[in-house]
């Protein structure tokens, strides 16, 4: 369940939480996270993962969202996502 603070609004996530969740869901992935505004709510992430190979971008992004276990769009308002496959 998303954790809430006393005012009942969703707690922003920190970069390491996001990184850990993605790595847990996509074992072996390389994750580069940048906090765009320092507010814990607007991040940019680049995920490099061999499992993306041959998949359309939509599917690659959906795999990252699945790793984030439903936080995307709620607790995590904005994640500018870029996905790619490791260079051979």
């Amino acid at each position, binding site marked *: 369940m998303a954790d809430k603070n006393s005012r009942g609004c969703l707690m922003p996530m920190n970069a390491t939480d996001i990184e850990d969740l993605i790595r847990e869901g996509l074992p072996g992935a390389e994750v580069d996270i940048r906090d765009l505004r320092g507010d814990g709510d607007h991040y940019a992430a680049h995920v490099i993962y061999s499992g993306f190979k041959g998949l359309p971008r939509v599917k690659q992004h959906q795999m990252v969202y699945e790793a984030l276990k439903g936080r995307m769009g709620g607790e995590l308002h904005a994640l*500018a996502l*870029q996905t790619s496959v490791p260079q051979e």
Partner: protein
Amino acid sequence: MMTNTPAHDRIDGYVNGDDVVLFMKGNPTFPQCGFSAAVVEVLSHMQVPFQSYDVLPDAELREGIKAYSQWPTIPQLYVKGEFIGGCDIVREMFAAGELRSLLEEKGVKAA
């Protein structure tokens, strides 16, 4: 595609009612979110006519579209009934020239 999601049939009608359909926050003239505005900009730049639907006043649509496409955020772009992606993907595809080739492949005119 999930078929028993809220407003599924209504959304199905919208998605298949026009060649290019954008579910967004606000409308093309007054987008209410930066990500929605970015997709409108790409489509306008390519002079691609599109039908937009504002999810802000319509909670059932706002939640139903996320379940329909299994995609957690708005905006969402559809071409000939197929879900293409949100803001990031549309921008990445536009930058890589993939959006133009996809539109051409699906017989949609773009400048």
